[in-house]
C-alpha cells in the first residue's frame, strides 16, 4: 500500500497495470490523452506491457480486441467521440465477448471544453448491453479499473469505464495495492469470435441472457450506496459519478441530508432505485451528462404518484457541465455569499495559435489566395488549426469530426462549389483522411486538399504522427494523386508570395490537387532543442 499523486486519467492507467495489463492502445484526444501518456511512461520505466499510440480509435480498439482474443488483459482508451470511430468493433466485441479482460475507457467532455459535442458514453454501454463503471473520484478510478478487469473476465465481455473531463484532469492522492500477475496466452474459441450469422445469433442470445446477472451485480455493488432518511420522505436524490460529489458538497453527510442513491455501475441497480423511489415523493436526478437515469426512470408515462425532476424538467440545465453551484440551486439552497466580480469588463482570452505557428502562415497565404475567388469554401478538420476559425484568420468554415474535411470538400465540389478546399493536419490525415482521398483521387475530383504537416499531433501535446514528411508525400502519391498537382510549400513569412501563388494555381486547376504545407510544430521544435 502506498499513496500516489495522480490525475484521474493516471489512476485509471495505474489500476489497469496493477490488474495485470498486457497491452494498451489509444489515439490522443482531450481529456483521455493522459491515460496513454502515463502508460507509455510506466512501460518505458518498468516494461512488462505494451503501450501504443494507434493510428486511430477503431484501430486501437481492434488491437486491444486481438490481445483479448489471445487471453491477455487489454485496455483501449479515447475521448468520447473516439468511441464513435471505434463503434464498429465496440458493438461487435459485445457479440464476440472478451477472452482476456477487455476494458474500454471513454472520457466524456460535458461542457465541451475541447470537443464538438457532449455525447454521453453510458448510452454506448447500454446500446452494446455491457457493464459500465462511472467513477466519482480518483480512488474509484483506480479501484474500479481493477474491478472492471475482473468483471470482464467473469462475464467474458468488454467493460466500459466512463470518465468526464473534470475527473480525468483533476489530481488527488490514491492508495494503490499490490499488482497482480498477467494472464497466460490462451486463445478464444473461433466459433464465438467469427460472427457469421449462425454464430452471431447464438452470441446475441447469450448476451441477452446475461443481462439479469449484470443488474444483480449492480444491485450488490458497494459502489452504489443507498442511504434512506427515516425522518424525511419528501426529497430523494439519485446522482451518478461526480454529480454525487456536488450533492455531498452541498448537503454533507449529516442526518438532515436527503435520502440518496449514488449510481456508479450500469445496467442500473433496479432494486435500489425502487427502494429510493418508494421512500420519497420527489426524486431529483443529477447526472453530469445526458439524462440517462432520469429518462429511464420517467419512461413514457412517469412514475405514478411521484415527481421525477432533473435535466428534463429544468431543475438542472438541459445541457452543459454540472457544478457545485448548479447542484446547490437544484437542491433549493441559496448561493454562498461571495465577493462578486469587479465592474471592469473582463476581456476574454480565447485559446490561440502560438506565436510563430506554421498554421498561421498557411492561413495567411490561403486567405490571400481566396481573395478574388469568392466562391471558395474551406472545410477544416480537427486539430490546432481549427483555431483558424477565429480572428485574425477567420480562414475556415467547418469542423465536424476527424477526417471530415476531405469528404465534405468532395461532396461540396460534386454539387458545384468552386474552389472546394480541405484543410487537414498530418495526424488527422493518417487517422481518417486517407480513405476519402483515395476515393477523390479515383474520380479526380475538382478540389484542393491542404495537408498541414507539422510532424506531430500538436493539440493534445505532441504525440507521434504516423504519416509525415517524405512518407506522407509517397503515401499521397500512392493514393493516385497526380504528381503535377502534388505540391509542397514551406509556411514561413518569407515564402508568403510563393505560397499564395501555389495555392491559387491549384485552386484554379480543374481536378484534384494536394498541397502539403511542411513545417515542424513550434512547440515540438522547442522541446526537441531543449
Amino acid at each position, binding site marked *: 500500500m502506498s499513496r500516489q*499523486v495522480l490525475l484521474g486519467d493516471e489512476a485509471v492507467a495505474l489500476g489497469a497495470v496493477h490488474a495485470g495489463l498486457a497491452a494498451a492502445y489509444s489515439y490522443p484526444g482531450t481529456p483521455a490523452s493522459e491515460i496513454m501518456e502515463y502508460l507509455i511512461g510506466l512501460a518505458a520505466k518498468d516494461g512488462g506491457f505494451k503501450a501504443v499510440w494507434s493510428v486511430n480509435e477503431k484501430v486501437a480498439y481492434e488491437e486491444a480486441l486481438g490481445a483479448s482474443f489471445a487471453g491477455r488483459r487489454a485496455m483501449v482508451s479515447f475521448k468520447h467521440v473516439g468511441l464513435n470511430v471505434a463503434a464498429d468493433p465496440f458493438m461487435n466485441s459485445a457479440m464476440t465477448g472478451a477472452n482476456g479482460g477487455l476494458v474500454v475507457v471513454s472520457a466524456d467532455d460535458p461542457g465541451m471544453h*475541447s470537443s464538438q459535442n457532449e455525447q454521453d458514453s453510458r448510452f454506448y454501454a447500454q446500446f452494446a448491453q455491457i457493464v459500465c463503471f462511472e467513477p466519482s473520484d480518483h480512488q474509484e478510478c483506480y479501484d474500479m479499473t481493477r474491478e472492471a478487469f475482473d468483471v470482464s473476465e467473469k462475464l467474458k465481455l468488454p467493460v466500459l469505464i466512463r470518465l468526464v473531463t473534470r*475527473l480525468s484532469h483533476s489530481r*488527488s492522492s490514491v492508495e494503490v495495492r499490490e499488482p497482480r500477475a498477467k494472464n497466460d496466452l490462451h486463445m478464444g474459441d473461433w466459433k464465438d469470435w467469427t460472427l457469421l450469422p449462425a454464430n452471431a445469433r447464438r452470441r446475441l442470445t447469450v448476451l441477452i441472457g446475461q443481462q439479469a446477472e449484470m443488474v444483480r451485480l449492480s444491485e450488490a455493488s458497494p459502489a452504489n450506496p443507498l442511504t434512506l432518511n427515516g425522518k424525511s420522505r419528501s426529497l430523494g436524490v439519485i446522482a451518478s459519478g461526480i454529480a454525487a460529489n456536488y450533492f455531498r458538497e452541498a448537503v454533507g453527510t449529516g442526518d438532515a441530508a436527503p435520502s440518496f442513491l449514488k449510481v456508479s455501475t450500469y445496467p442500473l441497480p433496479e432494486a435500489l432505485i425502487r427502494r429510493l423511489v418508494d421512500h420519497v415523493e420527489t426524486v431529483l436526478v443529477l447526472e453530469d451528462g445526458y439524462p440517462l437515469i432520469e429518462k429511464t426512470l420517467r419512461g413514457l408515462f412517469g412514475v405514478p404518484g411521484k415527481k421525477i425532476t432533473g435535466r428534463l424538467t429544468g431543475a438542472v440545465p438541459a445541457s452543459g457541465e454540472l457544478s457545485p453551484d448548479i447542484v446547490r440551486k437544484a437542491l433549493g439552497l441559496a448561493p454562498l455569499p461571495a*465577493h462578486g466580480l469587479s465592474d*471592469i469588463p473582463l*476581456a476574454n482570452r480565447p485559446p490561440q495559435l502560438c506565436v510563430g505557428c506554421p498554421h498561421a502562415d498557411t492561413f495567411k497565404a490561403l486567405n490571400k489566395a481566396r481573395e478574388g475567388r469568392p466562391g471558395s469554401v474551406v472545410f477544416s478538420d480537427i486539430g490546432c488549426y481549427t483555431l483558424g476559425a477565429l480572428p485574425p484568420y477567420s480562414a475556415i468554415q467547418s469542423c465536424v469530426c476527424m477526417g471530415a474535411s476531405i469528404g465534405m470538400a468532395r461532396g461540396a465540389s460534386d454539387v458545384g462549389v468552386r474552389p472546394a478546399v480541405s484543410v487537414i493536419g498530418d495526424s488527422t490525415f493518417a487517422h481518417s483522411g486517407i480513405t476519402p482521398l483515395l476515393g477523390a483521387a479515383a474520380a479526380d475530383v475538382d478540389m484542393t486538399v491542404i495537408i498541414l504537416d507539422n510532424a506531430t499531433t500538436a*493539440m493534445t501535446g505532441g504525440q507521434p504522427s504516423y504519416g509525415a514528411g517524405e512518407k506522407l508525400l509517397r503515401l499521397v502519391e500512392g493514393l493516385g494523386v497526380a504528381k503535377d498537382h502534388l505540391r509542397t510549400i514551406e509556411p514561413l513569412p518569407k515564402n508568403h508570395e510563393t505560397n499564395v501563388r501555389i495555392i491559387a494555381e491549384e485552386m484554379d486547376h480543374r481536378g484534384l490537387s494536394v498541397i502539403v504545407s511542411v513545417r515542424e510544430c513550434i512547440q515540438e521544435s522547442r522541446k526537441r532543442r531543449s
Partner: protein
Amino acid sequence: MKQDIILAGVGGQGILSIAFVIDNAALAEGLQFKQAEVHGMAQRGGAVQSHLRLSDGRIWSDLIPKGAADMILSVEPLEALRYFDYLKPDGIVVTSSTPYKNIPDYPELDKILAAVGKAKRSVIVDSEKLAKEAGTSKAQNIVMLGAASPFLALREATLRSLVETLFKPRGPAMVEANLKAFGLGRAAASV
C-alpha cells in the same frame, strides 16, 4: 482545517508547477487535496485556472463552489479579477502586477490593480522584477507561490523542499534561482 484556492494565469505561465508544489506539500503533511486543472484546447494561450482544495477531512467536489475560495493566487492581474465571484467575502487575493497582453482589448493596468485592491485583503507583487532579481524571468510563478506562502496552510520548509524537487532535474542553478524567487516573493508579501 480547510483551504480552497483558485490558481489563475495564462496558458504557459506555469500555474501547474505551483499546483505541483502545493499538492505534494499537502501529501507530505498528511492533508487531503483535490486539484482540478485545464488541459488541451482550453490551454493554448488562453485563460487557465485550477481549483485547488486542501483539507484535513474528506473533500467531495473537485470544483470550488462560488463564494467558497479562501484565496485567489494569480500569476497575472487580469486573470485574478476573472474569478472574484469564487472568492469568500473576506478571502485574500495574491496576484502579480505584471500583465500578460496577448489580446487587443486588454484593460488599463491601473484600473485592474485598483479593482484587485478592493478585495478585503490583497497582496500585489511585481513578479517580473523579483524573478529577474532571482536570476530567471521564468520564475514568476514561483515568486507568486512564495508571495502566497505566508497565507497557505502548509509549512514554508515543506514548500521549499518541493520547489527543490520540482527543479532538481533542471540542475542546481535552476534550483537556486527558484528558491531565491520563492524567498523574494515571500519577503515581498510579508512587508
